[in-house]
Structure formats: structure tokens, C-alpha cells
């Protein structure tokens, strides 16, 4: 009964991800204990979304997405704190450019190998960025992290919009997330998106069909880095610090966990995963010091018994693909 009533709604939601994400996240800050938690979910959801493009839709498991997250964060942070650029737009552009260039270079080399070799290469490259940031203390702040990022107002059509309140910043971030989701939707719906799926399902056959598999993978890799870089850039603005741990390999694990928890290869999965992980962490850590054990068990349970993740299982249960 409920299932029959719910199925068309969920079907519609899954079919209109952009409108659905905007509608849901417009109300989201009022559903969680405090606004900054909502922003954190949004930003990490975007991080996982970028990862999911590569893993869920192209079938490439990257263990080095901390690199583009960190490049986006440092690009924006350095623009504001060191170069003293007075524009939020320019600062975000610099973060995105850093992530895209980083993604293009790393992708160019890593995509020459497959499977575990690919994953290890991405990991190694991200560690190179980590050590570079660790030792270039004059530019990056070294292990104390990059500080002194001012909280600029957003210049919009001649007006200066303050982002100082947590809610204002949240909707600022949501606008970017909506843009990224719309862009991703457009890409996945295009013939190019179909080629991505073909590569995920059978790369050899896609190649036999005449597609330049490596080039398609590289474009997907760079686009993934762009979305991840945007998330990193927003995180730098959100915290007004960039910890050097942003580039550390353990940060690369976060989107992997969130994506698998929420459901790889689905539009909402990364956001569902990020929300579950972060809200659980936030609330559990108030009561128990070993909350990571609980989250770890939940994660294992999903991977073992519900490999399609929370959202994937939900869709499957309702017969929606």
C-alpha cells in the first residue's frame, strides 16, 4: 500500500534530481541540530558526488581524491589569504582551476594503468601534493594549516551579500551544489554519459565500438576533479582555514565511505551517504568516544548485506532504477 503510493513519488524524484535536490536541501538546515552541520553535509556530499562520477558512473576507483579537494581548498584559500584577491568569484575560480589542472595532470598519468595500479597511482599522487603542501609552509602554512582567509561578502550584480551568518553561507553553498548537480545531470544524459556507462560495464567492448576510451576516461576524471575541487573550495570558505590534512590520504577515504554508504552510481547516494555519516558522527561523538566503531560497523553491514547502499536499496525496494 505505502509502497504503491511511494513508488511514483520516488520515481519522479529519481528522474528529476536537480529540482529534488534543491527542494530537499532548501529545507534541510531546519531538520538538523544546527546550520553548520547542514553545510558540512552539503559540502561533503558534493565531494562524494565528484568521486561518484568517477567510481559510480565510469567505474574507476580513485584513492586520491583528497588531492583535488585539497587543491580546490588551497587554491581558493591562497587566493584570499596570500594573494589578497578581493573577490570571492576569483578565489573560487582559482580553486577550480587548481583542481582541474591537477586532475588533468594526475589523470593523464594514472589512466595508463587499471585496477589496483590505477588506485595506487592516484594515492601516490595525492601524497605528493600532501608533502608539497607540508613543506611549502610560506605559501600553504605547512602543518599549522593555511589561516587568515577573510570572510568576504559576495559581490552579486553590484550588491554585496554577506555570508557571515551560517544560513546565508548554507544557501550560497547550495547554489553551487545545484549548479554542479545540474551540470552532472546534463553530462550523464548526453551521449558522452552513455559512453561512460559503456566503459564502466565493459571497457574493451566500448573500445571495440570505436570510442577513444582513454580520452573519455580523462574527461570524466577532470570533470570529477572539478566537482571535488568545488567542494574543497567551499570547505575553505566555510572553515576559513585549510588544514594540511585536507590533502592527506585518509581524506580520500571519506568520499569512498560516503558514496558506498549512500549508494554508488545513484544521484542522491553521495548526499544520503554524507548526511548519514556526518549526522551520525556529530551526534554519536557527543556520547561515546568510540563512535567510529559504530559508524564502521554500519558501513560494513551495508557493504556486506546491502551493497547498493541506503539510497540504492531504497530505490531497489520500490522497483525504481
Amino acid at each position, binding site marked *: 500500500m505505502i509502497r504503491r503510493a511511494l513508488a511514483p513519488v520516488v520515481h519522479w524524484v529519481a528522474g528529476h534530481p536537480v529540482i529534488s535536490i534543491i527542494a530537499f536541501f532548501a529545507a534541510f538546515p531546519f531538520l538538523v*541540530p*544546527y*546550520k*553548520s*552541520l547542514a553545510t*558540512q553535509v552539503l559540502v561533503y556530499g558534493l565531494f562524494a558526488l565528484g568521486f561518484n562520477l568517477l567510481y559510480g558512473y565510469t567505474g574507476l576507483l580513485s584513492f586520491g581524491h583528497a588531492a583535488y579537494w585539497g587543491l580546490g581548498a588551497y587554491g581558493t584559500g591562497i587566493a584570499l589569504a596570500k594573494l589578497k584577491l578581493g573577490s570571492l568569484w576569483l578565489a573560487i575560480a582559482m580553486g577550480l582551476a587548481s583542481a582541474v589542472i591537477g586532475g588533468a595532470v594526475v589523470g593523464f598519468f594514472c589512466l595508463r594503468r587499471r585496477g589496483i595500479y590505477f588506485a595506487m597511482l592516484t594515492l601516490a599522487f595525492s601524497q605528493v601534493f600532501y608533502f608539497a603542501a*607540508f613543506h611549502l*609552509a610560506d605559501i600553504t602554512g*605547512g*602543518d*599549522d*594549516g593555511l*589561516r*587568515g*582567509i577573510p*570572510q568576504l561578502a559576495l559581490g552579486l550584480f553590484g550588491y554585496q551579500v554577506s555570508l*557571515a551568518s*551560517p544560513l546565508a553561507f548554507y544557501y550560497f553553498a547550495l547554489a553551487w551544489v545545484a549548479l554542479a548537480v545540474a551540470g552532472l545531470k546534463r553530462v550523464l544524459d548526453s551521449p558522452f554519459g552513455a559512453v561512460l556507462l559503456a566503459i564502466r560495464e565493459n571497457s574493451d567492448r566500448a573500445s571495440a565500438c570505436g570510442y577513444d576510451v582513454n580520452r573519455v576516461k580523462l574527461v570524466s576524471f577532470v570533470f570529477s576533479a572539478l566537482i571535488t575541487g568545488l567542494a574543497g573550495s567551499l*570547505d575553505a570558505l566555510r*572553515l*576559513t*582555514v585549510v*588544514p*594540511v*590534512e*585536507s590533502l592527506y590520504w585518509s581524506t580520500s577515504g571519506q568520499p569512498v565511505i560516503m558514496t558506498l554508504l549512500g549508494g554508488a552510481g545513484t544521484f542522491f547516494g553521495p548526499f544520503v551517504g554524507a548526511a548519514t555519516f556526518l549526522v551520525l558522527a*556529530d551526534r554519536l*561523538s*557527543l556520547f561515546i*568516544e*568510540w563512535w*567510529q566503531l559504530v559508524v564502521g560497523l554500519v558501513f560494513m553491514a551495508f557493504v556486506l548485506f546491502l551493497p547498493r547502499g541506503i539510497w540504492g536499496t531504497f530505490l531497489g525496494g520500490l522497483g525504481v532504477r
Partner: protein
Amino acid sequence: MIDRRTFLTGTIGAAAVMACPAVLRAQGSPIRIGFPLPLTGPFDWIAADQQKGAQLAMDVLNAKGGALGRKVEVLFRDDELKPAVGAQRTKELIENQNVEFIVGGLAAHVQMAINEQAKKANKIFISISQSDEISAKPDSGPLTFHEALNPTITGRSVGAWAVKNVGKKWWIVYADYAWGKQNNAVFTDVVQKNGGTVLGSTPYPLGKPEFSTHLPKIQAARPEVLLAAVPGNDAVAFMKQAISFGLKQQTKIVWPLHFVDLAKTVGIDAFADTYGGTSFYWELQDSVPEAKHYVEAFTKKFNRPPDSYSGYGYSGIMEVARGIELAKSTNSDAVATALLNNPSYAHYKTKQWWRKCDRKAFQDLWIVKGRQQLKGEWGYFDVVSKVAADEALDRTCGEKGYA
């Protein structure tokens, strides 16, 4: 039927009852202080000590009726020794718990992330662990206070004392990150200024305490003093290797800081006959009246004497309360002004004071030496000297970027 008068009386009465808790709440609501610290992670043992100090301060304050007649409530949050988590936790404390002040932090990089959030929210942040940057421009804001010692003060105090009293020829082993590098720079400088020489220095990657390739070279150079700027768990590995290579018998080992809890974990032999600085050692109760009071209350509550960082936690909370009472307000700006205008305090040891320009606390430091025989359950060290608080031991406010 209810007549009009009964209805009115009843309604007014009900409204009054419903309004009352709001009034009571406003007057009786506790003053909340947020306290982020790494309850999990490699420095959880220091964080546990900081937390105990803050808990004791809360008890002591509330037993006397709190501050301005309101209870003081300290909310602890685990920052996992990660800056991003520390920042998020601080946001939660400010937004969700409406804390008026932030005290806490361990490790320089996490302090920075906490400090940025407190600065944005215009709340006082009293940092209670070591960092040179936290009290210097551009990191320090007008409401950033620093209660702990810092690497410069520690290095200059311990270094100058050890050159005069332990030996002139030095070798420095340091962890290759901000704190280690600062120690290397400060100690090298102070040793040379006091007529000593630094024969060499060895950086090693933090968290990878493998010294066996370095130790023969150090032994061949025959230094009289070996400074080990080796933190936490690395220190344990360092001492084991130094003992097995025979270095400890040949050279006097000096640490920037000694900890009772670390000595207890590793065992008394490891730190026996080695020197170190400390902001507090519990046996000071024999000579300092405030310390006696503090150590007794602490031991009564926790069934063990305090280590050094609990003093910072205790004093940090006490200073917030003192500032509130002086300012007759919980407004951070008012409290900061009140503290800087009445800078002297002594909550748990000898007199301390705030320097107005950089809001840095100045305090005595003690040199302790590891005992060969444990005295009681917790008597790991002998107090060998006191280095009196002196603003000249820190960088000047000009050097720290204050005009």
C-alpha cells in the same frame, strides 16, 4: 459553565505559570564554556589531563555559587586532533550550544582552526597548549588569549638553564614539523648565545621514530647534551633506542617538556637522569601554597595527582570566571578588557599575568629531573630549578607583529 471572572483569573494564572520558567531560565541558565580537545588520538592522555583540570575548575566555581550567581557549565567536545573536526566542533558549540567562551585545544594546528571559528563569532578563546603563532599576528585576534607556555619561552628557559648546568656541547634531534623545527631554532639560538655549541642536529619524520641509523653518528660526535624534541609516542621509541645504543650513559638527555603520565607509561628507567621543563609538577605543593590547595582538591576528586596540562585547563576556566566577575558581564569584549586591566592571577601555582599587547600569559617554569627510584606512586621527578616568569623570555610584541 465558567463565568467571565473565573475564566480571566484562570487564563492569567496559566499564562503566568507558563511565562515563569522563561524568566527563571534567563536568570538561572548556566554560563556555558566550550572546550574542544583531542579525547581520542595519540595525545588522548594529555587531553584527559586537561579535561580533569577543567572539570575540577567547574566544581570549585559552582561550589562557590558559579559566576555572577549563574552556574558554570563546561561542554567538552572531541576534536580527534584534527583541525577540520576541531573547527566543526567549535561551530557546533557556538551555534547549537550557545557557548559564551571557548577554552581548550591541544596541538598548534588544531588551535588555529578553533581560533578562526572563535574569531568569526567574536568569542574569547583561551588556548591551553603550546604554539608560538597563537599569540602573534596575524593569527591572534583581539579576543585570543594564550594560557600555556610556548616553544620560544620553553626553549629559552630550558636551554639557557641546561647550557649553564648540564653541558656546553649539544646535539639536537627533532621531529620534522612546526613544533620540532621551532624547538630546533630556539634551542640552537639560546645555546649559542649562552656560550655553548650545537655540534649538529637530526630531523626525523614525525610518527616514524627510527633512530638507529642516526645514533652512531651522534655518539661519534660525543655531545655532552642531547636535546630530544621528540613528542608523544615517538619519545618512547627514542628512549628505548637511546638506551640500547648506550647513548644515555654517555650523554645527558634534555627534553623540552617532561610529563608524569608519559613517564608512568614508559617506566621510570627511561626518563631517569634526564632533564625537562614543565609548567607544573605536583610536588610543587611542598613549596607553593596555591599548588598545595590545587593538588589536594585534584587528588581528592580524581584519586591521583595532576600532570602539568590539567593546570592549564583549570586556570583557563578560572580566568573566564574571574573575567566575568570583574566585568559583571558575559560579553567577550567586556571580559577581555577586564582581564587585561587586572592581569595578575594565581589559581593553581605561583603568580601569572597577561601581557596586554599579545594577551599571552607569563608564568614560572620549573626544571625537573627524572628520578632513579620512584617516590610513592607518582613521584617521578625531582624539582631541580625554577625559571622565573619574564616577558623577555618570549619574543617582544614588536617581533610578534604588533605595532
